[in-house]
């Protein structure tokens, strides 16, 4: 018996969510009284996970796993799960993992519950708390299968240090099991900018900006804060910004530490999608904008005055606090 944690990596480095997933996995393992074991692909950083309670990490380094493939990864993780007799498998909420996890669950005939925000509420029956209705509610969900797959919400449980000694081992997947029927031909990924999924801070703007030509100051503000840029649904529907930036109920969820909404009135669908963010700041000319009711901090004012001033003052602030 063990808990298996899939810790993601990118370009050889453990992703930020890997540390949170490991921390969560360790909490589950402690609760069940078993070992927390991790699996990773193509990284030399596996041993860093010892700081988060992981006592063993298996790393898969075969060439055929260099590029993420949902099916191949699900097969590999299921092989590790079987080897260690895992009864709980902990995964993240990244786009890749939400693609892979259902395949893994089906392969292991495991109940799968994503969007889990806290350590299990009980072991018998095994019950977890998850968000439902796009963060408008929570469900307390029992998983009744022997093997359980649990998807951890981004930035909900947090990264918790628990230093233990860790051993590392390479793991080899039977080549015949590698699936290549879905082939990746090209990846276009922003490399020098924070993504909505990973960023500590997200700067988001809406129709209050009046047109796509005014996004320069939003990008500059994001730059100063090392933040990701996002937008409201109407802005993406109007084609002012790419779909990938649309956050809200039907777009991407946001779970950053700080979410700054500029010229966004705060439709219920938008508020639901960003409600997992810890601190929300609103900049809007209309003091009656619904977003003010859902925000922690706000400024009533014109974005075209407030944002340039904010950029300049944040630059000074950064210089002083560097």
């Amino acid at each position, binding site marked *: 018996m063990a808990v298996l944690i899939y810790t993601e990596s990118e370009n050889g480095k453990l992703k930020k969510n890997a540390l949170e997933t490991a921390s969560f996995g360790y909490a589950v393992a402690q609760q069940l009284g078993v070992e927390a074991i991790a699996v990773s692909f193509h990284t030399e950083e596996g041993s860093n996970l010892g700081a988060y309670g992981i006592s063993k990490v298996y790393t898969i380094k075969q060439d055929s796993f260099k590029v993420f493939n949902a099916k191949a990864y699900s097969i590999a993780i299921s092989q590790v799960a079987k080897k260690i007799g895992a009864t709980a498998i902990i995964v993240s909420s990244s786009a890749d993992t*939400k693609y892979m996890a*259902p395949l893994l669950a089906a392969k292991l005939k495991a109940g799968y519950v994503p969007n889990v925000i806290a350590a299990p509420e009980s072991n018998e029956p095994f019950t977890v708390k998850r968000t439902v209705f796009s963060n408008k509610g929570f469900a307390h969900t029992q998983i009744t299968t022997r093997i359980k797959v649990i998807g951890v919400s981004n930035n909900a449980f947090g990264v918790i240090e628990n230093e233990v000694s860790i051993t590392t081992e390479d793991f080899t997947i039977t080549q015949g099991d590698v699936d290549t029927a879905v082939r990746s031909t090209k990846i276009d990924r922003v490399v020098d900018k924070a993504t909505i999924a990973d960023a500590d801070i997200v700067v988001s703007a809406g129709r209050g900006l009046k047109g796509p030509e005014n996004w320069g100051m939003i990008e500059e503000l994001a730059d100063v804060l090392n933040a990701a840029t996002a937008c409201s649904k109407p802005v993406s529907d109007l084609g002012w910004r790419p779909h*990938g930036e649309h956050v809200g109920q039907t777009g991407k969820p946001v779970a950053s530490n700080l979410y700054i909404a500029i010229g966004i009135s705060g439709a219920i669908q938008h508020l639901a999608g960003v409600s997992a963010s810890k601190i929300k700041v609103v900049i809007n000319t209309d003091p009656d904008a619904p977003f003010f009711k859902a925000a922690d901090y706000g400024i*009533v004012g014109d974005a075209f005055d407030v944002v340039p*001033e904010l950029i300049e003052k944040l630059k000074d602030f950064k210089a002083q606090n560097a």
Partner: protein
Amino acid sequence: MKILVCISNVPDTTSKINFCDNDTKFDTNGVQFIMNPNDEFGLTRAMWFKEKQGAIVHIATVGAASVEPTMRKALAIGADEAFRIDMEPKDGFAVAEQLAALIKKEAYTIVIAGRESIDYNGGMVPGIIASLLDMNFINTCVSLDVDGEKATAIREIDGGKEYLETTLPIIIGGQKGLVEESDLRIPNMRGIMMARKKKLTVVPPIEVENSTADVSFDKPAAKGTVKLATSVDDLINMLHNEAKVI
């Protein structure tokens, strides 16, 4: 080309969410139900395959008779035939098993589901179907083209896009991007009239076991009042010293 679009019936995106029966059930009182937005983008893309490439388009919904108005809307938009699997959908895995049985029987070569339904946000139905039937699977799919047995697709990844190639049979988890918001169709009177005559078959569910059960629900705590900053300096000060986020 025979396409199945899997459609969920979900609360309208503007719905206020409440729970009843001692917080053990979603309170449907006063709630308007709609076609799951991710599924509607998929259905609209399927209409494109129908019109440009002669595809036959079926839809399927797992649910009680109360989901039929949403299914009729899909037929009014242009789907040819519908199947309602007569089971209350309570567990994503079980829903996928029901749909997989239908897909196998009807031998669809393209299956389009939404990447997730906006009610329980499980996001697992297309992936589990793919695994059960060994179909090629692309999630968060924002573009799909089919040429003979070959399919090319784009999926949204964190911070960008991935271009993919595969072969049929294929199942996708669809979303906005498959078609644009402005491509979505409102059924016209002729469509609505024709939809009434289209075949909607009620299928008894196969025997499956649920792997999960929602035992109770609750709602987020009410938010405190917003603190309004009097100046930009004031805001930076609060974010730094009080919220400690910058």
